[in-house]
């Protein structure tokens, strides 16, 4: 048994909206019904539930069991993953681990958040004491500090970052589930001229927080075959790193835990960066995409912008990127937003990308970023390699 004995047999996703008029459990119920319809599984066969973080559920210390109750699930394994935006991909890894340990047979990974409509979070962290008194708004300030430092060390070609923004926006135009407000074409000039939020972070660098959800149904490959399912997706490599270089006082913020997590995931998969067929990185700010290209070894550190300039990231290009628009152009479904790029990778490997289907579906790499720490880049980095039935 191993990670690759797990099989993602179904995926589901809701429309991403600026503000949900539906309760988070109604979203969860829709995702559950869609997964049952698409896979032929019965509700009673689901014996595991793994939730991503959510701002709506953040006040409830009983969140996973309460949600299971609301959805009528009787379970042998039930938990919430709380590594921020890394949670959806982290949840799939934990589902595979639970299957591997024999703790569950069929796991529903549910990623839903209605952060705009109902934010119940009250975060206990360094923030109240060491950041809030500075007017430090969190992610934009953190990425402003990161970007200025990157520029100082390596230089930053903002038109290269704009190219990433434009490629993702093009994909959102092909995604009916993307937030409607964002489904307007943009140019590199639009990116460069968008207003500054926290220098040099612009509006079009940034995600817009939205409401929505996605989910996966995960079982063993053996069970998937017993059920006669012909299409499924297998995780063949995973790496996770929280608090990269926590014991260093002066951290080079241009390097992230993805260097460690990516190395582990790719080694587990037996692949190198040049073998990656499509890339679905967590995108809260555009520069995070460019940095992850460096961290995973698509190019050397400091060469990210040059690599971007010579690469075609569209769904017909040589390295398709976040082909449903990424969070920046599809909308960030709160702390469940990491599910957007993950579910898109699964959809592409199922060959169900429709008008944005990519041609090379040998594999796909998904990443996560979670949490903004004090004076560093991000708290948790995850990397997962997926293949069609391997």
């Amino acid at each position, binding site marked *: 048994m191993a990670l690759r004995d797990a099989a993602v047999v179904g995926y589901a996703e809701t429309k991403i909206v600026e503000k949900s008029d539906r309760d988070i459990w109604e979203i969860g119920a829709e995702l559950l019904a869609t997964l049952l319809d698409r896979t032929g599984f019965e509700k009673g066969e689901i014996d595991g539930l793994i939730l991503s973080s959510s701002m709506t559920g953040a006040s409830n210390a009983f969140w996973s069991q309460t949600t299971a109750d609301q959805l009528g699930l009787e379970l042998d394994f039930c938990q919430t993953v709380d590594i921020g935006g890394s949670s959806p991909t982290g949840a799939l890894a934990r589902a595979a681990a639970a299957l591997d340990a024999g703790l569950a047979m069929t796991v529903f990974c549910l990623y839903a958040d209605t952060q705009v409509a109902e934010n119940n979070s009250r975060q206990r962290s360094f923030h109240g004491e060491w950041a809030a008194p*500075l*007017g*430090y708004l969190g992610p934009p300030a953190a990425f*402003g500090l990161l970007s200025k430092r990157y520029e100082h060390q390596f230089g930053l070609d903002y038109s290269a970052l704009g190219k990433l923004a434009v490629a993702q926006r093009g994909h959102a135009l092909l995604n009916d589930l993307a937030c409607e407000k964002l489904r307007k074409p943009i140019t590199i000039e639009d990116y460069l001229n968008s207003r500054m939020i*926290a*220098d*040099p972070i612009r509006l079009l660098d940034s995600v817009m927080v939205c409401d929505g959800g996605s989910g996966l149904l995960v079982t063993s490959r053996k069970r998937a075959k017993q059920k006669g399912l012909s299409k499924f997706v297998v995780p063949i490599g995973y790496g996770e790193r929280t608090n990269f270089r926590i014991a260093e*006082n002066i*951290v080079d913020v241009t390097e992230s835990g993805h260097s460690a997590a990516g190395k582990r995931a790719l080694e587990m998969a037996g692949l190198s960066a040049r073998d990656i067929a499509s890339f679905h990185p967590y995108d809260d700010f555009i520069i995070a995409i460019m940095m992850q290209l460096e961290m995973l070894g698509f190019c050397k550190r400091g060469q990210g912008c040059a690599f971007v300039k010579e690469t075609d990231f569209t769904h017909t290009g040589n390295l398709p990127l976040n082909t449903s628009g990424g969070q920046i152009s599809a909308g960030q479904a709160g702390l469940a937003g990491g599910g957007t790029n993950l579910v898109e990778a699964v959809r592409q490997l199922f060959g169900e990308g429709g008008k944005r289907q990519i041609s090379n579906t040998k594999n796909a790499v998904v990443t996560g970023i979670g949490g903004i720490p*004090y004076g560093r880049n991000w708290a948790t980095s995850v990397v997962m390699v997926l293949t069609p039935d391997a």
Partner: protein
Amino acid sequence: MSAPLNDTLSVKREAPKPRSYSKPFWDATREKKLIIQYCRKSGKYQFFPRATSLFTGRPDLEWREVSGKGEIFSYTVARRTREPFQGHEPFFIATVTLDVGVNVLGNVVHCELDEMRIGLPVKPFWAPLPNGTNLLMFEPDR
């Protein structure tokens, strides 16, 4: 030529609520003294204050007063904020590398955009908080 950015000194900040292990830091700011945790076993400073050493996992820490002088490691200009900072933009938020080798976040005051740069020498500037403690800020050390 550019004007100095907002010094945010008129922002109605609340005094942060210290934790059991960070109270000495805030108490020292009443006298505008900067004290930082020092790990005896590893011979290193650490910031922000924690209940344990980042280096050894043991609470073998002492407080040492430091000058607070350092240089800009990175900076950003906050142009969009929330209450109580709304209307006080734009202002600087910077990461400062102190002489003793730790990075500290702080506002930078009395500084123009043209003067700001990574590597700029800075020194502490203390902004009063309502409970008699002071918030550590920085200003150029000209």
